[in-house]
C-alpha cells in the first residue's frame, strides 16, 4: 500500500441517528430474546418444551450474543464504514482470544477429568 493518502473524512454512507436508534432497538430486542430464551429453558415457568431446547440453549444464546457483538462493532464502532485496517486490528486478537479460551476449556477439563490424585 503506497504511503501518504489524504486524510479520510466521513465515509459517504455514514449512518444517520435514525439508523443508530434502530440498531439500539434491535439490540434491546436481542437482549430480551436472550433473557426470554433463558426463562423459556430454565425459568420458573419452563415447560417440557424448554427441556427439549436445553441442548441447543448454549449455541442459540451465543449466536444471539454474537449478533449483538457484531452490530455494536460494525455500526456503533463504525467498522462497517471505516478502513479495513481497524477491523483487522480488532478481529485478529479476537481470533487468538477465542482459540485461547477454547484451548483452556479443553485442556483443564481433560486435566480434571483424568488427573490422577496424589
Amino acid at each position, binding site marked *: 500500500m503506497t504511503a501518504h493518502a489524504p486524510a479520510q473524512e466521513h465515509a459517504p454512507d455514514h449512518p444517520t441517528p435514525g439508523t443508530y436508534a434502530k440498531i439500539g432497538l434491535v439490540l434491546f430486542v436481542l*437482549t430480551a430474546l436472550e433473557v426470554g430464551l433463558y426463562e423459556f429453558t430454565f425459568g420458573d415457568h419452563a415447560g417440557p418444551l424448554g427441556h427439549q431446547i436445553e441442548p441447543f440453549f448454549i449455541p442459540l444464546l451465543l449466536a444471539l450474543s454474537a449478533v*449483538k457483538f457484531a452490530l455494536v462493532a460494525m455500526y*456503533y464502532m463504525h467498522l462497517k464504514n471505516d478502513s479495513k485496517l481497524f477491523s483487522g*486490528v480488532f478481529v485478529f486478537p479476537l481470533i487468538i482470544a477465542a482459540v485461547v479460551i477454547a484451548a483452556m476449556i479443553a485442556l483443564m477439563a481433560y486435566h480434571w477429568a483424568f488427573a490422577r490424585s496424589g
Partner: protein
Amino acid sequence: MSDHAHALETSTGLDSRKLAIWTFIGSECMFFATLISNYLVNKGRSLVGPFAHEPWTDPATGKVLEPIIEIPLVTVGTALLLFSSLFVVLALYGAQKGNRKMLLGWLAATLLCGMFFVGMQVYEFTHFVHKGLTLQRNMFGASFFILTGFHGTHVTIGVIWLATMFYLALRRKLPPERSLNLEMAALYWHFVDVVWIVIFPVVYLIR
C-alpha cells in the same frame, strides 16, 4: 491534546490516535479473554455454595443457600449499557456536526447510564456478599468477582473519561475538528459494552 500525529501525513491516511485506540482495544481483548477463560474453566469447581443457578444445602448446618444470580437486575443493567452505547454514538454525531446541544444532551445520557450501571454492579456485589458469596468463599465467587469487577473498573474509567469529554464540551473545547477525542473515548466505551455482551450470557445465563 497533542496534534502531532494528525491524519494528513500518515502512510494509511488514518489518524494515528484512532489507530492507537484500536490497537489498545485489540490488546484488551486478550486481557478479558484470560479472565473469561478463568471463569469458564472454574465453572462447576466450587467445593461449597452458594452457586450461580442452583441452591446448595450446607451439609454441616442443613441451611439452604439460594442461587445467587438474579436475572431481572442484571438485565436492566445490560439494557442500560447497551443504550449508553447508542447515546454516545448520538453524542459523537452531534460533536461531528457541531451540534453542541445534541453533544451535551446525549453525552449526559451516556454518563447517567454508565453511572447507573456501576451503581447496579456495586449493589449487586454487596447483595451477593450478603447472601454469602465472597471472593474467598468458592471458585464461583473468586472467578465471578474478578471478571465482573475488572469489567466494572473499566466502566468506571470510561465514565471518568466521558465525564472529562463532557466537561470539555461544556467549556466549548470540543468543536468538530476535535471530535476525534470523543470518538476515541466512545470506541473505548463501546468496547466495554461489547465485553459485557459476552459476559452477560456467559456468566448470568449459561448454567
